[in-house]
């Protein structure tokens, strides 16, 4: 058994190494192919040279094409060139533009693929995450071979495989106030494809300081939202939402889900708005917000306020400058910590580890196990003999807990033991369970203890085959 385990981990390691090398080689191949294409296009003899002026670096001019598109580009983008409302002017503007997509996740995946395909001249990708199995259902730019590898590497390889002729910048790092001004300043248009409030405020503020249009998309559950901010005197994110939304005390334990195609739809629309801005075609979604409701199959576009003269960032008397930006604490402002540090609400005597709980089960110690996750989480997986009362309903359904405790108590009356059963509380990651224990202790359940780290700790430390999600 041991030896086998060792062998397979060796194989997994080698596989990972080979996959990484494979992607590097593929990247190199596409770069070289692109280079070769450029050189052959440049040296190709051409009848169209008529004015005696030719530059080897711009093959299109040799063909006498004023719009600057090479023959390959004409063929590649022909369906866009044939579009009367788009045409060569829009295409050559697009080829000269640069776009930064922040986040290579559910929104960024389709946005990046379309932006690469349609011929944005330079495409930047920034993300600090690695590809995980539970990303695959919505982050369609990534393939299984890249699980465990940086999303930026994976996304860049996919974009290059679609279009090897555009320039792709890889930023494998988190966007912070310390690097945002420098990175965003290198691009014409910014696409917000992130997934959290502090990033949204930070990106919007940075775009105001740099005067960049921001194509902002968001998706959660069955709904999506889309707006173009800071464009042509239009509002910024803060004009609309000067006060950040309150985050419930334990965001991380009640992470809501999303149906993969919902961010997909919004990400595609982000690509579309970006293309419109870059090519100066159509009417951008500025001072308007598109609302997508997947369940009812409804799309609504509502007019939203214009720029607010009182906005602390883009308003008339704003004193928000680059220095203030660099010092601004967005996680504190939004009360949304990005580094998922666990809560620590309880004294150690009110808590037990998952290993300790396993011993309690083995000793068949009398207890009640309360699972405070939402019921649809409970349906995915749960520990045996647990009682599910979601944290949000705990107060209202406290009598269910009281009778569960009483049952265990009564069971032992005959033996003459009158001690209360112990009460343990579990959730997904060990934050909600602490809030529940705090409440329960205040409500007279003096023995309530939380299981540190929740079911994730159980899976890591006790039972590796216990499903995580």
């Amino acid at each position, binding site marked *: 058994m041991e030896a086998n385990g060792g062998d397979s981990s060796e194989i997994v390691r080698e596989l990972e190494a080979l996959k990484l090398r494979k992607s590097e080689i593929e990247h190199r191949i596409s770069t070289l192919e692109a280079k070769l294409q450029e050189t052959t296009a440049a040296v190709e003899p051409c009848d169209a040279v008529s004015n005696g002026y030719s530059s080897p670096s711009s093959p299109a001019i040799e063909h006498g094409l004023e719009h600057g598109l090479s023959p390959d580009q004409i063929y590649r983008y022909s369906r866009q060139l044939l579009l009367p409302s788009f045409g060569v002017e829009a295409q050559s503007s697009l080829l000269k533009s640069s776009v930064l997509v922040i986040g290579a996740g*559910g929104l960024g995946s389709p946005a990046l693929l379309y932006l690469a395909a349609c011929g944005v001249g330079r495409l930047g990708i920034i993300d600090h995450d690695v590809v995980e199995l539970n990303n695959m259902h919505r982050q369609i730019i990534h393939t299984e071979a890249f699980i465990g590898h940086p999303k930026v590497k994976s996304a860049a390889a996919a974009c290059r495989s679609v279009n090897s002729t555009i320039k792709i910048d890889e930023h494998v790092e988190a966007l912070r106030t310390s690097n945002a001004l420098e990175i965003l300043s290198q691009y014409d248009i910014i696409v917000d494809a992130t997934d959290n409030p502090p990033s949204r405020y930070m990106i919007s503020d940075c775009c105001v300081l740099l005067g960049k249009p921001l194509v902002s*998309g*968001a998706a959660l559950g069955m*709904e999506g939202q889309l707006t173009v901010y800071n464009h042509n005197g239009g509002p910024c994110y803060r004009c609309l939402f000067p006060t950040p939304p309150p985050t419930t005390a334990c965001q991380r334990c009640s992470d809501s889900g999303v149906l993969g195609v919902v961010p997909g739809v919004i990400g595609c629309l982000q690509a579309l708005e970006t293309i419109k801005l870059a090519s100066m075609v159509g009417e951008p979604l500025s001072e308007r917000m598109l*609302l997508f409701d997947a369940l009812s199959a409804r799309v*609504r576009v509502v007019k939203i306020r214009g720029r607010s003269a009182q906005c602390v960032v883009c308003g008339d008397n704003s004193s928000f400058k680059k220095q203030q930006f660099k010092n601004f604490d967005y996680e504190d402002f939004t009360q949304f910590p990005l580094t998922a540090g666990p809560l620590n609400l309880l004294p150690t005597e009110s808590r037990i580890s998952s290993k300790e709980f396993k011993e309690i089960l083995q000793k068949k110690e009398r207890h009640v196990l309360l699972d405070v996750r939402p019921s649809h989480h409970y349906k995915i997986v749960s520990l045996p003999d647990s009682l599910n009362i979601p944290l949000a309903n705990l107060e209202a359904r406290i009598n269910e807990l009281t009778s569960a405790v009483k049952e265990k108590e009564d069971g032992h009356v005959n033996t003459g033991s009158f001690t209360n059963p112990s009460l343990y509380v579990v959730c997904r990651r060990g934050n909600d369970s602490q809030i529940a224990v705090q409440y329960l202790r205040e409500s007279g359940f003096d023995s309530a203890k939380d299981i540190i780290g929740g079911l994730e700790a159980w899976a890591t430390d006790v039972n590796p085959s216990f499903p995580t999600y």
Partner: protein
Amino acid sequence: MDATKQEVTKIESDDTSSSVEIKVLLFARARELTGVPDLILKVPSGSTTQKCMDELVVKFPSLEEVRSCVVLALNEEYTTDSAIVKHRDELAIIPPISGG
């Protein structure tokens, strides 16, 4: 799809003598907190959108959570707290979402 039943909750205020009925569209967290995508709200005529919000928070106290951070749209147009609602107006309450 016929099966999609629109859940319309009717909320009436005490004064029905001269009142207007508006349709309230709830999005994102506001929908989660109330449990409905839309509802009919009866308010005294001459009520402002702010008054409508007050009424809603009375009926759904949990809505207080998002009140300070919503975009309001009246008949798909930008509106302010002091705008007067008319019979059959459509008031959209749109909290931001930030997922992706």
